[in-house]
């Protein structure tokens, strides 16, 4: 007699515990553009979407994807998804002459889907929106009685903005799907300036000067989307996200409470099987960040466009298992820049999928890996990066 085996989905609670533990606290800085405006937009995408150069909509297949709320309509069974995203970055600036390298890991997407009786598929997701973590160093000189003395200003910003969404998706007829989600922006940022006078030669201990503040973010978003399947060979989808103002409430009366306009985002995308085992996709996103610039005290913001396209060879195999191979390219404007010039991010993408456990046509557990090689740049600034994405999918609870 053997012990009853546990299905992969039985381990779902443990997986979600890991995800919850890693979630909001693990937003780590991965770009110098975190210091621009409200930070660097971080898309809640899974590894398959990234490896295909997609901007988050229109891929054939069902999944929990916050930017494509209708994509969960045909999931059918409960499931969960967790994405980890390490990246390695090299910075070179000709405007300030600085160079540097840094690395970090974030968890941009945690998602759960569960059938909601006859209403369709309910979804819950927790994902990144804006990454704000960075550090700044300034060497300065102060005049004391003993003469000019070198001091160091260190500025640390931690935290960022995340979003929790609850959604519902359902098929409409045999070819159409619709989905809607309501999101709540959350997160906080802690900004701390420390002036160290360690270089001052004095008899006793010199206290550092410290000034800072912490702000809690809040706001609401609503995303609606629809898609159309053409049999099993093509899918066309679109979505729109409306957001309320983002409120940043200061913990201390010494700091100002602030509000920021958030953009209206429009996305369209399509994918189609051109031949058995050959999937192509293209997608476009437009976000009206320009209005946010009016709320910034320093810097400007721009409306941005992102697009991407890619190919998936879905019949490839690895170790006797289905292992689709994916390549793509994507380009996205950045809403905030370092020196006021337009900034953008471009990347060549690639990746592979691996079905780890399946029952008939149903995949109980799978792993997707994406690798992106690209750069973020504006005049005087080039940031080369390698970014990995690793997504674990389980289903069948």
């Amino acid at each position: 007699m053997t012990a009853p085996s546990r299905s992969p989905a039985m381990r779902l609670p443990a997986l979600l515990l890991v995800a919850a533990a890693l979630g909001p606290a693990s937003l780590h800085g991965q770009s110098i553009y975190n210091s621009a405006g409200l930070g660097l937009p971080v898309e809640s995408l899974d590894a398959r979407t990234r490896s295909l150069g997609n901007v988050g909509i229109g891929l054939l297949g069902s999944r929990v994807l916050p930017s494509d709320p209708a994509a969960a309509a045909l999931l059918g069974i409960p499931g969960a998804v967790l994405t980890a995203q390490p990246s390695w970055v090299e910075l070179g600036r000709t405007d300030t002459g600085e160079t540097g390298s840094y690395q970090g890991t974030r968890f941009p997407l945690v998602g759960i889907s569960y059938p909601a009786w006859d209403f369709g598929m309910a979804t819950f997701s927790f994902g990144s929106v804006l990454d704000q973590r960075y550090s700044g160093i300034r060497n300065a000189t102060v005049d004391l009685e003993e003469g000019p003395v070198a001091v160091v200003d260190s500025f640390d910003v931690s935290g960022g903005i995340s979003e929790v969404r609850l959604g519902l998706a359902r098929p409409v007829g045999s070819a159409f799907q619709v989905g809607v989600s309501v999101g709540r922006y959350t997160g906080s940022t802690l900004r701390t300036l420390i002036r160290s006078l360690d270089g001052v030669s004095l008899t006793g201990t010199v206290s550092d000067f410290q000034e800072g503040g912490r702000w809690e973010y809040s706001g609401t978003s609503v995303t609606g989307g629809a898609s159309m399947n053409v049999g099993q060979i093509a899918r066309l989808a679109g979505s729109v996200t409306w957001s309320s103002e983002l409120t940043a409430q200061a913990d201390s009366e010494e700091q100002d409470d602030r509000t920021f306009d958030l953009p209206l985002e429009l996305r369209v995308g399509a994918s189609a099987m051109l031949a058995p085992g050959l999937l192509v996709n293209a997608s476009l996103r437009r976000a009206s960040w320009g209005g946010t610039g009016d709320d910034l005290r320093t810097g400007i913001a721009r409306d941005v466009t992102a697009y991407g396209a890619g190919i998936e060879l879905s019949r490839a195999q690895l170790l006797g298992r289905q292992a689709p191979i994916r390549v793509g390219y994507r380009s996205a404007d950045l809403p905030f820049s370092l020196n006021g010039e337009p900034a953008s991010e471009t990347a060549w993408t690639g990746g592979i999928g691996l079905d780890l456990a399946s029952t008939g046509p149903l995949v109980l557990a799978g792993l997707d890996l994406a690798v992106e090689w690209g750069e973020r740049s504006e005049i005087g600034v080039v940031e080369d990066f390698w970014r990995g994405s690793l997504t674990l999918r389980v289903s069948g609870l």
Partner: protein
Amino acid sequence: MNRLPLVALAVLALATVACEETPPTSVDPDVLPPEPITVEAGLSWDEFGGGLQVFPGFGSASDLGSGVLAEDFEGVLDARTLGRFAAFPRTITVRDSTGGTRADSLPIFRAGRVGVVLDPEASTNQEPVTVTLGALSQVWDPASTTWERAVDTIGDARPWDEPGAGSARPLGEMVWDPAENDTVYFPVDSAQLAEWRDTTALDQGIVVGVETPGERIQVQRILLSLDVESTLDPDTVVSSTVTRRDLTFIYSPVPEPPPDGIRIGGTPSWRTVLQVRAPETLTGPPALCERVGCPVAVDPDQINYAALVFRTRAGPPAFQPTDTVNLDVRPVLAPEVLPKSPLGASLTGSVGRRVGPNLFAEGEGAEIEIPVTEFIQDQLRGETATGENAPVYVALLSTFEPLSIAFASFHGPGSELEPRLKIILTTGATVELP
């Protein structure tokens, strides 16, 4: 097959944990808040100080564990060292005729030598001096004795027959050359030893003095070497050493309290108490006013450093330090019961602020900075880190009381070199969202 998801989870965890986090760091000034301003402000005595009082009488010469000899030092100071020896050994161990050892409980103290160990480094003489030894025959109290009085306790004041224990019976004089050794020995006979052997007698002891005028000699310790004869074997003489039971010194004249200025140390020790008021606002320096406008309210978190700055002063020559002075500064916790107020924890650490002796002589006028950053910060907050009322008085004292007959002097209020309060503060920073 069922293990694959766990493997995948492990891979996921490994991929994330294996990456060491190094956040992006920029030196671009545009990504930092506006630069704060750091300035140094100097407050005069009138702006921060007050209530200066000098208190004598902390500790006694017997606490010091050493002695002083002087004769007309700097034309003023006379000092003598007094002592008593501890109990003599009750038994000695000798070999008997069989070669074994036996305890002899009836030893005979035939003769001895009083050793006076001197400190060449802390003494002023470079040339030989004549040291004298006398035997006391008057009741005296090591904790309270002074130049004038053998006993000076509450309810019992007995003057010396002659001031300075001058009525002692002379036992001899020896020449001490600091270039050759650090100890002088005085031979004493068995009759004198019998007198000192009675440790219950209060009218015995020794007095050590110096005949050579113009020098101040530091006595490190005294000892008594005994030649002990055995009753079991009269041919056997063993040596034994007795340490001191009491050691103190008396001197004249006792310095008068300073009419102005600050005094720290000495024996018994002097302490100086003063009020230090943290500034609630600043009206300078000009760089600060240009940047943030004056008057500027001072926030405790803006204080990077605060220090009391004193200027050294040459005190009476007879009492000028000949060794490093360790200054201590402590908050006065109950100024209403001064001079007996309890003091708080040291603001200068366990060693204190070390000041070389030359700064109280030819190098007088030197600035001595004593950090009081936390004291000032607490006062601006209104309470200490433990939630108690922030003190406003500090006591200046010697880290070890008493340490030496010499004391440190500083210029006081009203002088051109009066104390001042130095403050380095940083302000003008505002951290906001972009």
